[in-house]
Structures are given as structure tokens and as C-alpha cells.
């Protein structure tokens, strides 16, 4: 099972947390999420797998945590 965390505005669209079964890669995961939450397509975000930000498609294993991070606005 893959845990997906949503933050900031994205949590309003998809909720704070989702659990997905049997997704092999981040591309596949994002594709599934976009189908489930069409509003995500209009949003900017970066992706972190197990707290490491990724730049391209990344393979996922069971128990991975994937986080979708919109532009930061702390301080």
C-alpha cells in the first residue's frame, strides 16, 4: 500500500491523506490521482517520495509515502 499526503491547497482538493494499492511508479500514481481529483491538474506541486523530492518518474515499493507539495509559503 502507498500512502499519499496532500498539503496546503492540495489537501482542500483531495483531503490530507489517501491510500492506494498497487501503483508501480510516481507517474502511474499521479495519473490515478488526476483521474480521481481532476482539480489537481490545474495545481503546481513538487513530489517527495519518503521525504526526498524527486524530479522524474520514480518507482514505488509497498509502504512508500508520497507527498504532494504545493509552493511553500512559510514565514
Amino acid at each position, binding site marked *: 500500500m502507498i500512502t499519499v499526503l496532500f498539503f*496546503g491547497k492540495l489537501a482542500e482538493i483531495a483531503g490530507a491523506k489517501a491510500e492506494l494499492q498497487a501503483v508501480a511508479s510516481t507517474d502511474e500514481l499521479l495519473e490515478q490521482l488526476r483521474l480521481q481529483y481532476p482539480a489537481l491538474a490545474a495545481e503546481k506541486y513538487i513530489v517527495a517520495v519518503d521525504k526526498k523530492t524527486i524530479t522524474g518518474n520514480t518507482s514505488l515499493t509497498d509502504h512508500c509515502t508520497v507527498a504532494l507539495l504545493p509552493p511553500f*509559503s512559510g*514565514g
Partner: protein
Amino acid sequence: MDATTTNRIMERKPKNIFTQGAIDPAFIAESIAKHSTKTDIGGHSIFLGQVRADVIDDKKVAAIEYTAYEELALEKMHIIREEIFSKYELTCMHVHHSLGKVAAGEICLFVFTSSAHRRAAIDACNEVVERIKTELPVWGKELFEDETHQWKVNR
């Protein structure tokens, strides 16, 4: 190991920077006062972020509600801290960031650096503030007086 080195290593352990709600000015004053025993310090630099009551389309910001990916933010802050200590001759550094709701006019960020000579404290403080704003996974939701909201964008 001398006391200064021990202190610096103590400063470098991962710390929780998050405080629920606004940062109390009395806490800031206390934090300054605690440094009177560290007599190798010659200069402090402090940045205080305050929630601004921006007016957007005739609606005024009443508060900002902060959320964070806390685990990742603390890991990232630890790396920033390490890099700042290796770049600048600092005696110590303290960072506090609010989570949850902070009303307009209240303090939401407190960065405090100290060094033997002013330049290191000033430059380190500026760099830490910039890096917090761009690198920490923290989000601010601007809450308007009419209970609508928009997501804050850092400039």
C-alpha cells in the same frame, strides 16, 4: 572539549522549531535575556515575521493559519542549520515558526543568531530567513474577516 564547542554541538542537534499559535513577545525577551551568560557574544541579529493585514479585493486578512509537512521541515531545517554553522562563525542560532492560527499583528517567525562580531550574526540571520521561506514545506492560509480564505504566496 571546551564549553564553546560543547554549546555549538548542543545547538546542532535536531530541534523542533514549531510552536502552536503566535510567538509570544515575552518568550522573545526571555530568549534574549538568556544570552547574558554567553559573554563571548558581541552581537545578536533578530528577525521577527509579523502577520500583515493585507487588503485584497476589499477583504482584510484577519489571520494566517500555518500547516507544515513537519517531519520533512524539521529534517530540512536541520540541514540548513548545519550549513549555516559551517558557513558563519556563529555562537548560537534559534528558530521558531508558528503552526495553526496567528492573528494579524502577531509574530509568526522568530530567527535569532549570535556571534562574536556583528557581521556573521547579521548575514546568517538574513540567509536563514530566506532559506526558511523558500525551502521549508510550510504553507500559510490567509483567513479573511468574512471567513473566506486564500493561499499565501511568498514573494
